[in-house]
């Protein structure tokens, strides 16, 4: 293809996304209005960071000079929250190495918010309110043929406990699935397909070891954490934040050890974050919601490229 044909192809592709871009613009306005009305402070924390939170299954992309591109703004946001003791939110880019598929881009936008004196179930109510508000704000896009706004966010959301789901839909319990390294596969292939189509599904009672930063429920021994799914697509992950300094340090150490054994990069620990916990992080709840996926869910897109002007594979370059 010659240069002008390439440019024409790009223009045609970008113009085909114009409705999706308008919807994205409308969505970010709605999100910001929502949080402003609920007395949240919008914050921006560094994108290049020195100490990404240690998580067993999250790998970061390296930036220059010993920095990493943030996989999430979580630690900085909680450091801010501890100092300000007020609700904060952030909408901005996050990065995950080697994650690419119809629902994944290595660079994406995350909407995160944290609220003092809240637990993950308070956050769930707020999330329902937010997403329903966003859904109404995008009502005008229902008429557009390019989209298939089919998910019913206004009705009741299904809330399912994972231990119960394992018992009901599989022959193994969640702990043995974890031991046999089958948890994710069973979740995707056996449990998620059971969910009602076009209806939001909230999974709760996750195994504690999958996450380094959620509080342990003293009764169940599971994480105080839930995730939101629609038609098999994960939209959000929320928890009651772990605020105990000693337990947090111990969990980071455990995760570091696991990553070291697996021969994976072991990121340094954010000492400011641990110090924040030692001096006292208020009890709080927080959530990370995939902004691009929220847009996909609201518009009824099933491939992230339908809303992405510049997917990484299209960025061909040459030296001059």
């Amino acid at each position: 293809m010659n240069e002008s044909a390439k440019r024409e192809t790009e223009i045609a592709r970008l113009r085909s996304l114009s409705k999706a871009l308008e919807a994205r613009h409308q969505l970010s306005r709605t999100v910001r209005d929502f949080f402003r009305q609920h007395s949240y402070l919008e914050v921006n924390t560094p994108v290049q960071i020195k100490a990404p939170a240690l998580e067993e299954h999250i790998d970061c992309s390296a930036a220059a000079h010993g920095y990493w591109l943030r996989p999430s703004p979580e630690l900085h946001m909680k450091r801010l929250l501890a100092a300000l003791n007020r609700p904060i939110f952030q909408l901005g880019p996050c990065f995950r190495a080697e994650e690419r598929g119809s629902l994944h881009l290595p660079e994406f936008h995350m909407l995160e918010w944290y609220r003092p004196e809240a637990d993950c179930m308070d956050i769930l109510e707020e999330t329902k309110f937010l997403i329903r508000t966003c859904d109404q704000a995008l009502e005008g896009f229902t008429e557009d043929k390019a989209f298939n706004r089919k998910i019913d966010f206004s009705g009741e959301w299904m809330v399912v406990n994972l231990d119960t789901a394992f018992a009901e839909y599989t022959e193994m319990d969640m702990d043995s699935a974890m031991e046999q390294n089958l948890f994710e596969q069973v979740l995707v292939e056996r449990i998620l397909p059971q969910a009602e189509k076009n209806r939001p599904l909230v999974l709760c009672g996750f195994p504690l070891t999958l996450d380094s930063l959620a509080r342990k429920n003293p009764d169940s021994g599971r994480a105080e954490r839930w995730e939101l799914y629609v038609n098999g697509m994960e939209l959000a992950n929320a928890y009651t934040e772990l605020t105990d300094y000693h337990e947090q340090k111990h969990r980071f150490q455990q995760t570091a050890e696991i990553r070291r054994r697996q021969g994976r990069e072991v990121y340094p620990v954010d000492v400011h974050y641990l110090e924040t916990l030692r001096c006292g992080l208020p009890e709080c709840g927080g959530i990370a919601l995939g902004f691009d996926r929220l847009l996909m869910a609201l518009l009824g897109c099933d491939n992230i490229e339908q809303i992405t002007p510049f997917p990484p594979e299209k960025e061909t370059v040459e030296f001059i």
Partner: protein
Amino acid sequence: MYEASDLRKGLKIEIDGEPYIVTNFEFCKPGKGQALYRCKLKHMLNGSTLDRTFRSADKIDKPNLETREAFYSHSEGDVHIFMDGETYEQYAIPDEILGTGSRFLKPDIECEILFYKERPVEVTLPFFIEARIIETEPGARGDTATNVTKTAKLDNGHEVQVPLFINEGDLVKVDTRTGGYSERVSKA
């Protein structure tokens, strides 16, 4: 060995000593857990399909594939005869291995044939072949605002969509991967 992160559509792998090609590929990573690579696989010899989910730590065998350059000679019914450019050995390739590619075969074009344990599994044609237009409506006709292409018949008997300025007798380049018109080589 391949890593699970190498998986993508079109990758050729080996499972239990059998060669497969990835025909569909879905990446997922639920619940802050490990990455899953959910693949649909097609057996490269018998065409049977298989669903297989790989996890991030999985290692996957590489099939021992050998590429040979060969020139297309002629066809005998549903079998296409190629001649090895180095050894002059003849290979008889069944039509189903070429798939839609068979319509672009022309004597003496050089192809790459992929062998798995001495059995041909894939033929790659040159990305572009030249063909002459033997039949198409003259010039631009009708509603040019919406009709930007027209149908044209090639000298190999197949039809492609071409721009309105293409005429009978023109020599054009056709992309064998998509089967579509690429550009005009020369005017009639």
